[in-house]
């Protein structure tokens, strides 16, 4: 297997493409008793127009189908997979995002048997009309649960204001869309996307890289699913401009809330390495809006919000930073964000202090094998490569950051206010 540094020499990653086409990454840590494994399918809710196996035309899929498949993976012809994992007290779960579906286990016993079974579970599709209908009822309740969550609705509206083709809608679909799903379409979508070459496995913890690649190479079930079909997706490039600059929605709340976002096109910065560019932007926004920032202090002294945080979304060449706040003074909060973005003053000392802090955070994070595995999964999905994070931080240069700051286009913004229904 190929040996690479992931967090400098503190965390090594071993990589090999298995005979069946599955990319396998192993992050050994023999100081821990535990292991975790994530089997990831590069298929999520954003992929909705595709040529299914055997079809010659692109087909628009009912929304929520990736998430539906995730639920159905736990239904096996040979019985309940929990019975197998339960005998070793192995935790098993799955999640669907906009661009992926992850199946994961955590445990301390029989790592190789459990990973082998995880692969078997995901590669043993079993769809019957009865079980699909039963699942519709369960997923329907999940959809209703999210729709009742007012902050989730605010997040949904913020994404609708920002994006046209990515991060769209409800990952689980709607009650109407899941009613269109049946065993036949599940089988076709499964066969299209659940192919080893469209997936990867990340294992971290007390395991031997060689044994992991050996078990993947010899797993009979995955070998029966060797890549057979090319995947053809109708690619929709995300637009540079936000969709809606302003929205107001109402809900059963007492305190008004907002989401305010900036959308950037990474191509505008003229930096070839987008991974490096993302590190610069993350560092800058940590300094501007993180704990102990001037922004933070101003919010506290002027009582501008009772709760606030920021988060980033990145896909291809699109980078967004989004602020959530609960505030009676939403306009003033937005003004302060704008002023902070327009008047950036970061010193070399600030820059180096944050770099140093990042090193220490990353070193500490290696103690948690689950964090390490998830970090690599995120890198692979976002940046499509495995790289040494320390190397990137080391190469960040203060003067290059200043050039990037000059190229920030602060005109492309989207704001959503969530206001109390009774005040409408």
């Amino acid at each position, binding site marked *: 297997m190929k040996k690479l540094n992931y967090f400098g020499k*503190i965390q090594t990653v071993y990589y090999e493409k298995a005979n069946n086409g599955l990319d396998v990454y192993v992050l050994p840590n023999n*100081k*821990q*008793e*535990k292991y975790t494994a994530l089997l990831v399918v590069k298929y999520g809710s954003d992929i909705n127009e595709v040529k299914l196996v055997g079809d010659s035309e692109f087909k628009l899929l009912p929304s929520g189908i990736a998430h539906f498949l995730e639920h159905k993976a736990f239904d096996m012809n040979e019985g*309940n997979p*929990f*019975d197998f*994992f*339960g*005998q*070793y*007290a192995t*935790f*098993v*779960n799955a999640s669907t995002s906009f661009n992926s579906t992850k199946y994961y286990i955590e*445990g*301390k*016993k029989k790592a190789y048997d459990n990973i082998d079974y995880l692969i078997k579970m995901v590669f043993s599709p079993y769809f019957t009309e009865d079980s699909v209908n*039963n*699942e519709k*009822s*369960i*997923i329907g*309740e*999940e959809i*209703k*649960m999210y*729709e*009742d*969550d*007012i902050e989730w609705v605010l997040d949904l509206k913020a994404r609708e204001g920002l994006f046209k083709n990515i991060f769209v809608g409800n990952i689980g679909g709607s009650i109407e869309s899941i009613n269109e799903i049946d065993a036949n379409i599940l089988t076709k979508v499964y066969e299209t996307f659940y192919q080893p070459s469209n997936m990867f496995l990340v294992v971290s913890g007390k395991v031997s890289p060689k044994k992991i690649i050996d078990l993947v190479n010899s797993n009979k079930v995955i070998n029966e699913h060797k890549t057979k079909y090319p995947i053809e997706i109708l690619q929709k490039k995300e637009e540079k401009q936000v969709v809606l600059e302003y929205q107001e929605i109402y809900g*059963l*709340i*007492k*305190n008004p809330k907002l989401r305010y976002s900036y959308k950037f096109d990474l191509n505008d910065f003229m930096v070839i390495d987008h991974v490096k560019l993302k590190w610069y932007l993350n560092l800058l926004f940590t300094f501007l809006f993180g*704990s*102990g*920032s*001037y922004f*933070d*202090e101003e919010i*506290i*002294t002027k*009582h501008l919000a*009772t*709760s606030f945080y920021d988060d980033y979304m990145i896909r291809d060449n699109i980078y967004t930073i989004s602020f959530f706040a*609960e505030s009676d003074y939403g306009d003033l909060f937005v003004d302060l964000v704008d002023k902070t973005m327009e008047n950036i003053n970061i010193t070399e000392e600030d820059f180096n*202090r*944050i770099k*140093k*802090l990042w*090193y*220490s*955070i990353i*070193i*500490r994070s*290696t*103690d*948690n094998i689950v964090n390490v595995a998830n970090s690599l999964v995120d890198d692979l999905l976002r940046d499509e490569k495995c790289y040494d994070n320390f190397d990137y931080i080391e190469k960040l240069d203060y003067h290059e950051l200043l050039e990037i700051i000059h190229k920030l286009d602060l005109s492309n913004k989207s704001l959503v206010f969530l206001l109390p229904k009774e005040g409408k």
Partner: protein
Amino acid sequence: MEYKKIELDEYNIHFIKNENFHSINCNIMFTQNVTKKLITYQNVLINVLTHSTKKYDTNIELVRKCQELCLIRPTASTTRYGNLYSTSFGISILDPKYYHESSLFDGLLLLKEILLNPLVSHQSFKQEIVDFIKNEERAYVIREREDPRSYANIRLLELLGEDNYALTGYSDLEILEEVTIKSLYRFYQKMIKESKIDIFIAGDIDNYEELKTFIQNSFIFNNHAIKLDEACTYHLDVDNEHLFKENIDYRQSKIALGLKFTNLSSYENKYIVSALNTLIGGNNDALLMKRVREEKGLCYYIGSYASRLDNILIINSGIKKKDYEEIIKTIREIFHDLEKGLFSNDLLKKMKLELLEKLSSINENNINLIYYFYGQEVLHSDDILTKKEKIAHITKKDIQNIIKKVELDTIFWLEGDL
């Protein structure tokens, strides 16, 4: 792993040597008897103390000092353990082996600064900071009550804990209004002077004597701890079930069921309560998930949690209004089957294995180790070997017996389903 406890007049120092991690953690834990007021005051106090100090008089200064020392911002948290209340302040220091600037002694001095040199004048905290934290706390309580899932649980605990007002752990909005810069300072003094104090240091350490002397010289609380109550709350026999219903303008209904244990032996309280919880609703493979979700497709989530110190078991789920009766019936059937012993030995075996695996998770990080030894120190929990032995010997009969001692006390039904 090596553990060493040093008993001093004012506090105990606990050294936990472990070479498996890249960080050293230090937590100072203050344990007090819980009161309704204390919960609200401590929720405000921890945020005020970690905001700034006399020496670092803005949050910017304090955070920058942490960053210089390669520390993540100091953490502070509160936890209720039955009738006791724990307030913890902690720092995580990068092991000096990996980054030379990091120093355990510098980190301890910063913790001392936070705890013993707060931003106070004339026996009062700073108005602007207290106001901000109070606003944040108020908004947090309101936000939690606006979330239907969380609201159903809060209401159940309020209804269940007639005498034990402290069940939820959230601040009381009326008491929050009464918090002033002076009254908060009095609670701060109370915490420093009257708590049982335990200082834990976990990580790759060996200079015990040097550390002990440093701590003794740095942390002088002038403390005279008051006697702590017994942590466990006991219930008299439960008479009738109570059903409380509210309507909401949401799509999904929520149910929360509160059950009380009565007359448990110490063994049952320590081991069988969590065994029962694991069997019925502690994981994705538990009986509630199997029967209510997987077999009948009646919900997306259903689970349970137990608090042995409160002697309660809580079940909660999000459901369709029309399925209420069916779900309650299924829950009753599960309890009936357990009482009759109608469950497999395989299930019993898996439950024991899961409890044993949870136990071994104490070695996964320094914080887990700290809380394990805190449990022994304050809650008189058994050591890990005893726990393993007791769990290994849990029988079907134990489960059948505890079912006879648990009664459904309250159902809270938040009826939605538009």
